[in-house]
């Protein structure tokens, strides 16, 4: 068993970055995720593992530091919250175009604009539909516990390097700020310089004599080459869609209705499954762990099983619900419920919505 600690979600993520063998973290403070860089600065990972921690002048600079270091083959990470993640979109688009591996977190707060510092899930579209310019995807993992804040850093780096893609840990103010017991995985050693050169021949580590130079770029002025590159990216996203879907089912075996939720909303929905079951309503929960790739096939399996309705529960005006509708494709009723703008719905409100909007509506 790994080391047990009581930690905030943000702190667990920071500790996991060190333990995952990250080479660097570049960040900029923003509520509700400033604990990530605060923890890293006080923990002195440069003494523990040699990991670099740097407070950048902006989120824009931080993501471009990630771009540079990731292009040079290193395991790097950043994190921010909604307004800051908007600023990172330019860099993320370049990271997608140049196919660089990295992990970053968005501890989402209510928007739009400066919004509020309270929790929200209103950045779903930005996270799974692109966010920046161009046709691209990133892997999006949604932790629902402090434990997953830690574990997803490790899984995130594995996926990032497997596919040369950005992996987003899409958290929210609840998961980032709350304290829970977490079992920390053991320290993974940082790769040596020789290992990096061996494993990542595409990385800019200096051109050895007689070898081809490495170029990290997202640019090609030849449109035919650019179209080919885009096809390559789309093929990669398809492979990811086929192989990296992650979800959990609760009480779905006999379910007539299913909540679809992720992150803190999934925990709330799980409680409201209990409330509804006490009333004899056969409801289950599909908890999404990966938002891209989306568990389309699993939703179709639930349709085959005879589920009559899906209630998308999310702290937004209704974003993920669109992907649920696409997956259901008219075979069952689909509705949305959620408080937003920084308000967290209660299990009772969610159960009540099931009765009113889904069953009674």
């Amino acid at each position: 068993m790994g080391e047990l600690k009581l930690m905030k979600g943000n702190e667990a993520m920071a500790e996991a970055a060190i333990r995952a063998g990250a080479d660097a973290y570049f960040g900029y403070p923003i509520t509700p995720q400033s604990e990530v860089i605060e923890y890293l600065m006080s923990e002195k990972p440069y003494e523990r593992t040699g990991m670099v921690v740097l407070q950048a002048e902006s989120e824009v600079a931080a993501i471009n530091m990630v771009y540079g270091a990731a292009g040079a083959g290193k395991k790097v990470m950043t994190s921010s919250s909604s307004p800051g993640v908007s600023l990172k979109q330019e860099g993320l688009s370049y990271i997608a175009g140049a196919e660089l591996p990295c992990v970053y977190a968005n501890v989402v707060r209510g928007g739009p604009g400066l919004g509020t510092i309270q929790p929200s899930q209103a950045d779903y579209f930005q996270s799974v539909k692109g966010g920046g310019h161009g046709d691209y995807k990133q892997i999006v993992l949604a932790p629902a516990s402090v434990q997953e804040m830690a574990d997803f850093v490790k899984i995130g780096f594995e996926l990032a390097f497997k596919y040369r893609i950005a992996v987003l840990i899409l958290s929210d103010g609840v998961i980032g700020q709350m304290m829970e017991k977490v079992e920390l995985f053991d320290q993974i050693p940082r790769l040596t310089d020789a290992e990096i050169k061996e494993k990542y021949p595409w990385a800019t580590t200096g051109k050895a004599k007689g070898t081809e130079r490495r170029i990290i770029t997202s640019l090609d002025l030849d449109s035919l080459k650019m179209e080919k590159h885009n096809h390559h990216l789309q093929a990669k996203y398809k492979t990811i869609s086929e192989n990296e879907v992650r979800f959990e089912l609760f009480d779905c075996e006999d379910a007539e209705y299913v909540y679809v939720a992720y992150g803190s909303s999934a925990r709330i929905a799980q409680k409201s499954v209990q409330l509804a079951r006490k009333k004899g309503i056969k409801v289950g929960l599909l908890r999404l762990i990966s938002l891209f790739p989306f568990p389309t096939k699993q939703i179709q399996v639930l349709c085959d099983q005879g589920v009559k309705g899906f209630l998308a529960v999310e702290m937004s005006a209704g974003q993920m619900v669109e992907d649920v509708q696409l997956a259901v494709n008219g075979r069952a009723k689909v509705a949305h419920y959620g408080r937003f703008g920084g308000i967290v719905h209660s299990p009772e409100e969610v159960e009540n919505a099931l009765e009113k909007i889904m069953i009674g509506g």
Partner: protein
Amino acid sequence: MADITLNDIIKPENLVYEKTRLMTDKELSYCPGCGHGTAHRITMEVIEELGMEEITIGVAPVGCSVLAYEFMNIDMTQAAHGRAPAVATGIKRVWPEKIVFTYQGDGDLAAIGTAETIHACNRGEKIVIIFINNGIYGMTGGQMAPTTLPGMKSSTSPFGRDVETMGNPLKITELVAQLPGTYFVTRQAVHTPAAVRKAKKAIRKAFENQRDKKPGVSFVEIVSNCNSGWKMTPNDSNTWMVENMFPYYPMGDIKVDGVMVK
């Protein structure tokens, strides 16, 4: 003597100059007469002469030199517009033993990338910044740059830069020289053989500083022409540069070994 042919002359022992192998054979995308080609060449010559090619990583900007990686035969990263100093910071921090440099134009470095420039310089990142200042946006077709001179015409200041409404040209090199994080700050040009030699010497010093782990950024501005953007012949543009750019952007070292010289 009449029997000597060209093939008799083309012999290794007669060679007085050759292109550095750190420039690729790719045809330059720069306009004939532009200073970029010379600035590329002397930068690559310095890296070759210092034996640094295997440990050097360059960062290309957005602007005319966006394709610098096509011509510079070393490992290169192409950065988003203005972000090169942040990208270089990322690389240098995780590979402190490598030599890292950026190559940026005036729009990239002194407009959209001002924050990244100032803060990389202020943090004293151990990188080289090569800054090509031609007072105009060349790539996008001759728009006003942060360094466009008062009264100077461009496609977005068609009646000349009016400082009342468009602001003043930014002397960012003097500005970064004030920061404790810069170690070497100089302004050079590449319009005459003598200027090219001096500029190359400055670039060499900049890379030597990084090699020798001197504390801070080595910043080399090269005031250059943009004959097509300025709508002049190459010769006229160089004359205009000497008469108009040099008085505003005076040549020479500004800070050497961390100490202001003027």
